[in-house]
């Protein structure tokens, strides 16, 4: 991959009303050819960032660079950025062909070449033969694909996608995720993708920028994000998460002791909370805790099963553990685990390395 700061946000602030900052001092570098997802709850500023990049909003402060050029003064139509909108924004009075030919025609590309490009773009989303249809005659998924094809037809170096799959049903959404991912892999275009759906983000992206409160909380690869969240918000937002609130009582190397509110001490991995006396929230993924641990794990506690929820391939247990009544455990479905019942006391163990002491909530 080429330029490692193909897109660069430098100290970007954005405010709509002069009272509140929607985006606060944002710094973000995106490499050429990368698939970066901006993930976050609604109102976290991710769509605003995308709109600033596309040129429909101007940053209140700071600069945005595209391919080492400041783009704040370039109007949207000269930026050459492809964009897929939330509701597709296909031109309803034009056929599929005309929709795709629009960006080519305004670029004064000859008809022969335009035909070739449209054909290529349509074959990319396997919609050949739909040229003469009107957008209204297409299903949601097909409209979606036309929108993707249209954003790519003029060979932009950067494509922005603003929650493009939000309106599709679950199955279609999943297959479209793979389709978009494959298109990205095949043509190597840089994609900035906005979504609030974490599964979507985890499946598709090279890197994910988790947004909250106008700031990027963490920017890293999907596995990194899931396995090693840097703060409570990320741990809570991505995947399932068990938490214990407490105070650091001892730190030694890569381990620390955390005294929980129930006065029991557990051993954790000091990530944010590194000094004695610091308040912390300890985060632990459900699948990292095991029932009846055989190997000597450095945390081993008793808990009472409150609820058993059957999920087919696994069973989910809600356990009252160390004062946390909503501690979730995932037990894989196997024949020797038939004795799980409500009210039963079980031993639960986990390694301190999986148990991250983060900032307090």
């Amino acid at each position: 991959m080429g330029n490692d700061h193909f897109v660069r946000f430098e100290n970007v602030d954005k405010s709509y009303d002069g009272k509140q900052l929607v985006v606060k001092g944002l710094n973000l570098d995106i490499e050429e050819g990368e698939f970066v997802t901006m993930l976050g709850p609604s109102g976290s500023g991710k769509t605003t960032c995308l709109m600033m990049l596309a040129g429909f909003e101007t940053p209140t402060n700071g600069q945005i660079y595209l391919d080492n050029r400041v783009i704040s003064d370039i109007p949207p139509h000269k930026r050459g950025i492809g964009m897929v909108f939330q509701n597709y924004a296909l031109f309803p009075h034009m056929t599929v062909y005309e929709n795709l030919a629009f960006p080519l025609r305004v670029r004064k590309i000859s008809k022969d070449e335009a035909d070739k490009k449209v054909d290529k773009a349509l074959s990319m989303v396997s919609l050949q033969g739909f040229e003469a249809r009107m957008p209204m005659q297409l299903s949601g998924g097909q409209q979606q694909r036309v929108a993707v094809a249209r954003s790519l037809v003029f060979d932009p170096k950067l494509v922005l996608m603003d929650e493009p799959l939000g309106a599709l049903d679950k199955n279609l959404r999943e297959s479209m995720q793979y389709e978009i991912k494959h298109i990205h892999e095949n043509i190597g275009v840089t994609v900035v993708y906005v979504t609030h759906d974490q599964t979507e983000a985890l499946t598709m992206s090279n890197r994910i920028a988790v947004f909250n409160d106008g700031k990027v909380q963490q920017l890293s690869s999907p596995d990194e994000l899931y396995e090693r969240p840097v703060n409570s918000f990320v741990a809570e937002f991505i995947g399932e998460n068990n938490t214990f609130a407490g105070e650091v009582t001892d730190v030694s190397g890569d381990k620390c002791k955390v005294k929980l509110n129930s006065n029991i001490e557990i051993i954790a991995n000091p990530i944010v909370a590194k000094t004695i006396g610091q308040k912390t929230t300890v985060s632990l993924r459900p699948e990292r805790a095991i029932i009846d641990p055989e190997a000597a794990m450095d945390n081993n506690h008793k808990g009472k099963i409150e609820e058993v929820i059957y999920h087919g391939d696994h069973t989910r247990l809600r356990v009252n553990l160390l004062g946390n009544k909503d501690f979730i455990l995932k037990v894989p479905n196997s024949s020797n685990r038939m004795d799980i019942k409500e009210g039963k006391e079980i031993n639960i163990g986990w390694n301190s390395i999986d148990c991250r002491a983060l900032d307090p909530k």
Partner: protein
Amino acid sequence: MSKEQILSSDGIPLEESLKKAERKNKLKALLLVAPLFLFILIIYIFPIGDMLFRSVDDRMITKMLPKTFVAMEKWDGQDLPDEPVYEGLYEDLSLLKKNKTFGKIIARLNYEKSGFSSLIKKTIRKIDKLEEGNYKEQFIKIHKRWGQSEYLVALKNTAPNWSYAKYLKGVDLKFDEKRNIIQQDEDRRIYKTLWLRTINVAFWVTIFCFILAYPIAHLLATLPMKYSNLLMICVLLPFWTSLLVRTSSWMVLLQQQGPINDLIVWLGWAADDNRPELMYNVIGTFVAMTQILLPFMVLPLYSVMKTISPSLMRAGKSLGGTPLVSFFKIYFPLTIPGIGAGSLLVFILAIGYYITPALVGGASGSLISNNIAYHMKSSLDWAFASALGTMLLVGVLAIYWVYNKLVGIDNIKLG
């Protein structure tokens, strides 16, 4: 190939049992629309039918001179008719004199050919003194016009029960004595000018309304709620004000000593002793009608523009279209249904507009509807008023038809 009949569970054919089940609902639905249907029938269909009927109805004279017309059937219309026609005339006119109902016939016949008025009046005055037999000679003795075949031809021409002469008059044509269609005498040709002026005014008012309404509607559709509501009230407030009040206020504004003229003088565009006439001519009609009909253009445009997603323009720009190209290739084509609806509405309203041109139009700014009103109220030629009204109606239907062919009526959006 015989289609197998599907039976419902009680053995009745499915189609029939479906109808049975639906019958009650249909009846209820009919009852619900019945008041509206009656209303439309009484206040819309019936008056229009009556108007159509009146415009061609010419039976009055046929009923008043029955014997004359029967006798005239045998006459070829070349030379003077024979005795039976005069005998019929004698009997019919005597009866009319006895019943004192000859007023209408005088007016009707004089309209057909001038000179009939004195002819009939004189004849009726002397009709009692006529002796039996040889009426032809006696009639000619009363008035020499009874011996001129053109009067008798004119009389014969009024015989048919139905006549489209009013329609001919409406486009400055008429029948001559031999029932050929010819142009109206030059000094009486006013309707062609009137029609052209009406269409011209309606057309330009539509264009002005469009030019003014498009940006307003666009603002209404795109401004944030609190501003667009205010703007909407500004659009609707005049709409809610009485038509007469608005027209009279235009009269205040446009008169020669009015504020607009004051402004023009103050700006030095005209001398104080040479103030331009802004009213009682076609300018007044244009200005006042454009203002009054503006909401009818704004509202359909607004309702269409509101449905156009702002992301379409953004998409256009992000795909490389300049704002202008995006506007003309994307936004404008999508507003065509609204433009169509608004223009059709404004044009149709303008073409039949009455009060405003009557008040501010003066002689050179009055339209066909003012002439219809004149014939309804002053000249009492209801048949002609009906004919003009029918022509107006047909014109509007024709516009509607053309519009449907060009744009398609399904594409109209009123909101």
